[in-house]
């Protein structure tokens, strides 16, 4: 009985704490196209992948029906639109299973651990499902099993989305509160902005459940464009841990490059590669929330920040800066600053080198808390379009963590 309770507790905790990946091989089947149509290196999206997402997981400019190679199953003919409200509005579902599998295994090295080397296979197995329902709904979800110190964590978030137009989507379920989500991540190590915790253990990385309004549109000459999102979430867990709801928002503007919602106008070039999208994107974000923790007072915190993402030919340079103010009754306010700067270079389309510098100062007003900073050099090898190897080193530069270096060889595959 204790074992069952323990498993239940671990499962509940996992539902709150585990974040998700986004790489959906079922889209490859649906459109009979390679992963690299949408991904720079899965799960990181390229310019077209972002446009596909911004169209509600559909091809741009209303061409999704003709690009779909697997015929959907009709749940009502078009003529039933004329019958409504005397009938259910017609729809369809994917013609074949929308399920995919994403497997992750690791060889880990941690300099200061008793067991320095270990084989962690699997680290994670994700059963992913995603697709469209008729003209205006889409869905995205997963059932994830993850090893965390020999405990099995399970999570099962999903989102149902109403796609009014590329400029207006309404999403319920797992939403994009994290300003640096997984579909922009190339590394095994999470962005420090996503992993940085508030005093009551809240962090962006944990899945956020709520409602979101978001959209995107192309810029001048159908190049670049804007994205926005604003949402309200529990903040912690599927059942909220406090009576306060958290709110967040992010806006971006992209100058040059593929339009945020796709299209080919003005995109003439002498060169092309799936990983090239010459552009600069700037963004700003905020999050205002309340974090609860057993035995502690509630923490009210506010986050604001910005990011820059510069793509030129085979290079990408991006960075983000985040400030957090945290207030708790009876103790001084805490101000934090976190940032990173990262560069990628595509040596070959299957071989990408990267280096990231990250800085985290948990309390900028207190010298007693020393900042954490580290270098993360790494190499990503796309052995196949759906098989990825990541060789990554995390080298701490600050005195406290100096010897806590880690090294990982991560293997991912998608089916």
């Amino acid at each position, binding site marked *: 009985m204790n074992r069952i309770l323990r498993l239940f507790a671990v499962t509940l905790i996992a539902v709150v704490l585990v974040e998700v990946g986004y790489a959906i091989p079922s889209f490859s089947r649906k459109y009979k196209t390679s992963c690299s149509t949408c991904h720079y290196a899965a799960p990181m999206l390229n310019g*077209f992948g972002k446009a596909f997402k911004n169209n509600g997981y559909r091809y741009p400019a209303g061409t999704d029906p003709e690009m779909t190679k697997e015929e959907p199953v009709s749940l009502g003919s078009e003529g039933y639109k004329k019958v409504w409200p005397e009938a259910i509005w017609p729809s369809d579902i994917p013609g074949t299973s929308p399920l995919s599998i994403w497997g992750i295994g690791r060889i880990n090295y941690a300099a200061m651990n008793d067991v320095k080397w270990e084989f962690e296979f699997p680290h994670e197995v994700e059963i992913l499902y995603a697709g469209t329902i008729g003209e205006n709904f889409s869905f995205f979800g997963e059932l994830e099993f993850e090893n965390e110190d020999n405990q099995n964590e399970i999570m099962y978030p999903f989102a149902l989305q109403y796609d009014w137009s590329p400029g207006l989507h309404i999403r319920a379920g797992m939403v994009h509160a994290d300003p640096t989500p997984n579909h922009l991540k190339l590394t095994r190590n999470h962005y420090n902005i996503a992993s940085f915790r508030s005093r009551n253990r809240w962090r962006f990385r944990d899945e956020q459940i709520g409602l979101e309004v978001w959209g995107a549109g192309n810029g001048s000459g159908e190049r670049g464009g804007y994205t926005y999102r604003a949402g309200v979430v529990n903040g912690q867990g599927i059942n909220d841990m406090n009576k306060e709801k958290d709110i967040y928002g992010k806006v971006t503007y992209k100058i040059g490059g593929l339009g945020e919602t*796709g299209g080919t106008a003005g995109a003439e070039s002498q060169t092309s590669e799936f990983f090239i999208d010459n552009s600069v994107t700037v963004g700003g974000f905020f999050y205002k929330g309340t974090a609860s923790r057993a035995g502690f007072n509630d923490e009210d915190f506010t986050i604001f920040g910005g990011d820059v993402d510069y793509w030129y030919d085979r290079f990408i340079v991006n960075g983000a800066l985040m400030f957090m103010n945290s207030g708790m009754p009876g103790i001084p306010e805490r101000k934090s600053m976190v940032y990173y700067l990262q560069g990628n270079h595509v040596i070959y389309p299957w071989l990408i080198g990267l280096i990231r510098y990250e800085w985290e100062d948990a309390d900028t007003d207190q010298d007693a808390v020393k900042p954490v900073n580290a270098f993360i050099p790494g190499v990503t090898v796309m052995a196949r379009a759906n098989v990825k190897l990541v060789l990554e080193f995390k080298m701490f530069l600050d005195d406290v963590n100096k010897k806590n270096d880690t090294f990982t060889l991560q293997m991912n595959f998608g089916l």
Partner: protein
Amino acid sequence: MNRIKIVVSISLLFLLSQPLFAGDIKGKVKAKGVKHSGDAVVYIEKIDGKTFDVPKDHAKMDQKNLTFIPHVLPVLAGTTVDYLNSDEVLHNVFSPETCVDKFNLGTWPKGQIRSYTFKKSGCIPVMLCNVHPEMEAYVIVLETPYHGVTAKDGTYEIKDVLPGKYELKIWHEKLKGASVVVEVPEHGEVVVNFDIKR
């Protein structure tokens, strides 16, 4: 009277535009080990001492629904091929083959065309799109305009071939078949069937 002259003139022009003596080659290709017998090319590679004018009209290869159409395109050496992008996504055309100087046409929007002239006969370059790696097509560059592409049921036809004795070859991207010596009659047709396999 004038009307009769016009009709006679047009008829003469039509007759002169056609070879006075020409036969057709037709037949069926049976492909083993693939889903269908289409996209094989049956051709006369060259005729000693005979050259042909390059057609003024460009050959065409479309990029539609993430597919090159047609999948195989035989052309006379010197022919220019127009590549049309019919999709609402960016496409590219390049070839890694040295016989076409590893050309890369860049990328271009829907509805626009970029072209390449295939000069070297005997070359069978693969066409690829570096945005969509699953896309693939072939251009077969020949010294004669006598070629036919098989339909999915394996049937092919090469029309208006100068009479004579030739080596008839077959090309398929995955399968191989033996060439056949064929004698094309002055009128009528000759039937040549092929079996191709790995």
